[in-house]
């Protein structure tokens, strides 16, 4: 082996090593900074009380409205996404099981939809809102976020469904089941772990997204009681508090960022654990 080869070998090995570990360090550093800055400002008051008068000018209170609002919004959107997305994912894997080309084309479009930025969904949601004569409200926010997370839910669920062997479906038909029964009793049951993962993934995306609800959900200091009231969300609350010139308000934004990150971490970790647990009962 000549010297140049050895130098090249080591050079690229070291470069790759540095790249891999700097990625790890950057991402670790990000979490450390966000937690470090936010935990100091975190208090029970911020998590469990509503904003009081003059909150955005340093008044007392907390961001319970935004935390609850985000859950309402994302929960509603996830329900809507399941109503549309669950049957769609089953349809792709039951009715279209023999049409590989159609399946692939649909997957291809869904993947492309996944990449559409949330601000576009937000602007579109706004147009829909005007068209339907709605105000910025929980309902408008739910519709917009549902549009955003449905393709995610479908594709994530579909990824699991497509690994289920065709023979299992054939067995179900040979026992006299209808397509519906096959879809719900065989495929849905087999893919349940994937369904839970997809659900949590979509829910997490719904909670964390800011750009899509900027136009559509409005913002309020209250927790909405009906669907046509505006709703506060956690990401937007962070965003608004950060734009305040008052240091104390900005401190609370950092605390809110910690809350949001923890919620997202809990969701993604439990999605992993649940999918591991449920996949034990699956016939491979």
């Amino acid at each position, binding site marked *: 082996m000549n010297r140049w080869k050895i130098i090249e070998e080591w050079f690229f090995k070291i470069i790759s090593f*540095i*790249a891999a570990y700097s990625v790890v360090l*950057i*991402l670790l550093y*990000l979490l450390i900074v966000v937690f470090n800055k936010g935990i100091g400002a975190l208090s029970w008051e911020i998590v469990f009380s509503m904003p009081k008068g003059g909150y955005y000018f340093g008044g007392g209170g907390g961001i319970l409205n935004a935390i609850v609002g985000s859950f309402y919004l994302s929960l509603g959107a996830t329900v809507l996404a399941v109503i549309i997305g669950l049957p769609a994912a089953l349809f792709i894997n039951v009715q279209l099981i023999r049409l590989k080309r159609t399946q692939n084309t649909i997957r291809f479009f869904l993947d492309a939809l996944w990449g559409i*930025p949330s601000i576009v969904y*937000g602007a579109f949601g706004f147009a829909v809102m005007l068209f339907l004569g709605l105000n910025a409200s929980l309902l408008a926010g739910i519709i917009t976020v549902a549009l955003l997370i449905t393709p995610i839910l479908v594709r994530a669920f579909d990824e699991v469904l497509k690994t289920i062997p065709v023979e299992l479906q054939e067995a179900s038909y040979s026992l006299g089941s209808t397509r519906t029964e096959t879809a719900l009793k065989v495929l849905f049951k087999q893919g349940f772990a994937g369904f839970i993962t997809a659900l949590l993934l979509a829910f997490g995306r719904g909670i964390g997204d800011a750009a899509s609800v900027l136009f559509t959900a409005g913002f309020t200091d209250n927790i909405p009681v009906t669907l046509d009231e505006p709703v506060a969300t956690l990401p937007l609350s962070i965003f608004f508090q950060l734009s305040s010139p008052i240091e104390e308000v900005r401190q609370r934004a950092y605390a809110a960022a910690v809350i949001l990150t923890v919620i997202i971490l809990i969701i993604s970790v439990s999605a992993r654990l649940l999918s591991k647990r449920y996949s034990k009962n699956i016939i491979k």
Partner: protein
Amino acid sequence: MNRKRRLTDSLVNIWMRGGLYIILAIPVFIGIGLYWKAAPLLNEHSLTDLIFSSKWFPMKGEFGFLPFIFSSVYVTLLAFILSAPLCLFAAIYLTQFSKRRLLNFMLPVIDILAGIPSVVYGVWGILVIVPLVSGSIAPFFGATSSGYSLLAGGIVLAVMCIPYMLNMLIEVFHTIPVGMKEASLSLGATHWEMVKHVIIRKGFPGIISAFGLGIAKAFGETIAVLMVVGNTLNITLSPFKAGYPLPALIANNYGEMMSIPDYDSALMFAALLLFVVILIINLFFRYFIHKTEKI
């Protein structure tokens, strides 16, 4: 009983079919909806005027999107230059050089980080990157900067793209059969030569697609960039100056868009522009992947 079963069957069938059709119709409706709202602007100005003019005076009815498009392209390219090589080499290290254990640890970590909301990345940008640009990087190059700059936007975007691109690249490298690696090694290639001749060459379409999809993601990212980029109209090559990307324009002005004539149309046009560009990039690279997966 039999009739009831058949009825449920056909009802559920309709529901399933309906769900799928609704989803597939979403992009069509987005296109139509945005176009419908952007139409007033498009009727008054030609497309080339809108895209290539840099005169932005909404009060006077002048809408030139060039500064916004320029800023968007600038931060996206910056993010790409910063993150793409890093991701490529990191993916190579994780899949080819390191122990399996590191990869098994990294995969869920990457997944979880990809799910962290962009507003959190924005907070980090304000806390770390903005002071870094104003305090260290800009002075080092003899420039002054408030920190809220194209560079800060580019760096934050780059970090956001890392989990996304890295994930795709690892998947690409995993599809390359071990036998091909063995063939190269058994013919006398060193480990790096094998990576160069087999992993990179065989994975090339996948690498390009991962990069392309990363670019599309960066181009449409809103909140995190908005928080650190400064939001000032500028066409400048200096990365230390502030910029104003398209998504930031939309997000920042939704409050006043109803008070100025045609302003809402202009914002919807910006959204339409983002939608069309990103959809095309996505369709192109996804097609590329679908094509190469079959071979």
